[in-house]
């Protein structure tokens, strides 16, 4: 197989990953690293670099559509980005210190967690009546449209959410992923934000978080342009198609099939890590 064939195969695989990731809401980035390592036998650190760049592309590419809906909250997003970017610096620093096998095991666990999160339905939590004074002082509030009228909300448990976001950022930097599932968890379960606000704000934050690791990845030599090129373009095109076909596809069946793939990749990453093959 020469470079041209290899690049084409990578492009098609990444396109499929981006398409399924957008369609199911899991994000394509999470399967890029295992696909590159397990199917294409790419070195783990090069795979992390290609994945991180694809994550920035999909997050920024989808932003315009999310903004149009008016659900995302730029203040909450910017405040939490202080935590995710600091975490991302730590995570990117750790990629050079932690062995590839450990990264593989952690990656597998995150894959299993993401699969579980995508079948576990998000719902709006009953909000407590007393507002978090810290949230009020930081202006972490907003309103979003429900059935034609504006409904107000205020964030809860701000310190816990900030801590979880630091963890989400560390995972993002360590694994070259967006870690959207952990971000949504912090905003949904801790801050008790309406889930439409959490999911769209999380997408907005993913690109900024990944950009914080990108400089360190670059200077560590993880970003190999010839490898990034087919992966980034494939994921980008795939996710754009995926987010546009959202309404006409039998999403439930596709989601279950994709979840099975994610679980299988997760188990294989853990197995490869534990047996020292990464």
């Amino acid at each position, binding site marked *: *197989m*020469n*470079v*041209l064939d*290899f*690049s084409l195969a990578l492009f098609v695989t990444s396109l499929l990953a981006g398409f399924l990731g957008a369609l199911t809401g899991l994000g394509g980035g999470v399967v890029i690293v295992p696909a590159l390592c397990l199917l*294409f*036998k*790419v*070195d*783990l650190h*090069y795979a992390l670099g290609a994945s991180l*760049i694809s994550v*920035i*592309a999909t997050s*920024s*590419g989808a*932003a*315009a559509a999310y*903004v*149009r809906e*008016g659900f*995302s909250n*730029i*203040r909450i997003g*910017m*405040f939490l*980005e*202080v935590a995710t*970017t*600091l975490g*991302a*610096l730590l995570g*990117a620093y750790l990629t050079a210190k932690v062995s590839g096998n450990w990264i593989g095991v952690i990656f597998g666990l995150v894959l299993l967690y993401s699969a579980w999160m995508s079948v576990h339905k998000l719902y709006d939590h009953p909000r407590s009546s007393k507002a978090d004074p810290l949230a009020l002082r*930081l*202006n972490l509030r907003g309103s979003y449209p429900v059935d034609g009228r504006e409904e107000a909300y205020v964030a809860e448990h701000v310190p816990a959410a900030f801590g979880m976001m630091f963890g989400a950022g560390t995972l993002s930097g360590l694994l070259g992923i967006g870690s959207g599932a952990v971000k949504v968890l912090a905003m949904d379960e801790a801050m008790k934000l309406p889930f439409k606000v959490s999911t769209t704000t999380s997408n907005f934050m993913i*690109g*900024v978080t*990944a*950009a*914080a*690791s*990108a*400089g*360190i990845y*670059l*200077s*560590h*030599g*993880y*970003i*190999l*342009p*010839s*490898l*990034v*090129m087919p992966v*980034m*373009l494939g994921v*980008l095109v795939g996710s754009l198609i995926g987010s546009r076909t959202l309404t006409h596809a039998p999403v439930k069946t596709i989601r279950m099939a994709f979840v099975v793939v994610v679980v299988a990749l997760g188990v294989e990453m853990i197995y490869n890590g534990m047996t020292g093959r990464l």
Partner: protein
Amino acid sequence: MEQEREHGLEQAMGRMLQIGVMVAALVVLAGGALYLLQFGGSKPDYGHFEGAPAAVSTVSGIVGGALHMDARSLIGFGILLLIATPICRVIFGVVGFAMLRDKLYTAVSAVVLIILLYSFVARR
């Protein structure tokens, strides 16, 4: 009124991100086409970590190579443009919140910007 201006800020951020991604993808595509024309027939070697060469792992190396139409540096330049889009979004935040006279969030955005820039000056 204030909410309308804030929504305007979000709209501008979203549009900026979309344009940034499109331009970055086109540069990566152009560099990629050139790369495949020159090296498409060689054997791929991504299985062993050696680290990307200096010409594609530093900002100055990438810009210098791209000016000489080196295919790998051109792809690298597209990647730099892509990384720059979320950073521009944060710069938009600093300026936008300052225009809304929100001192707290001008400061919060500035902190995020400093962390992002630190990532590029930090040596290993």
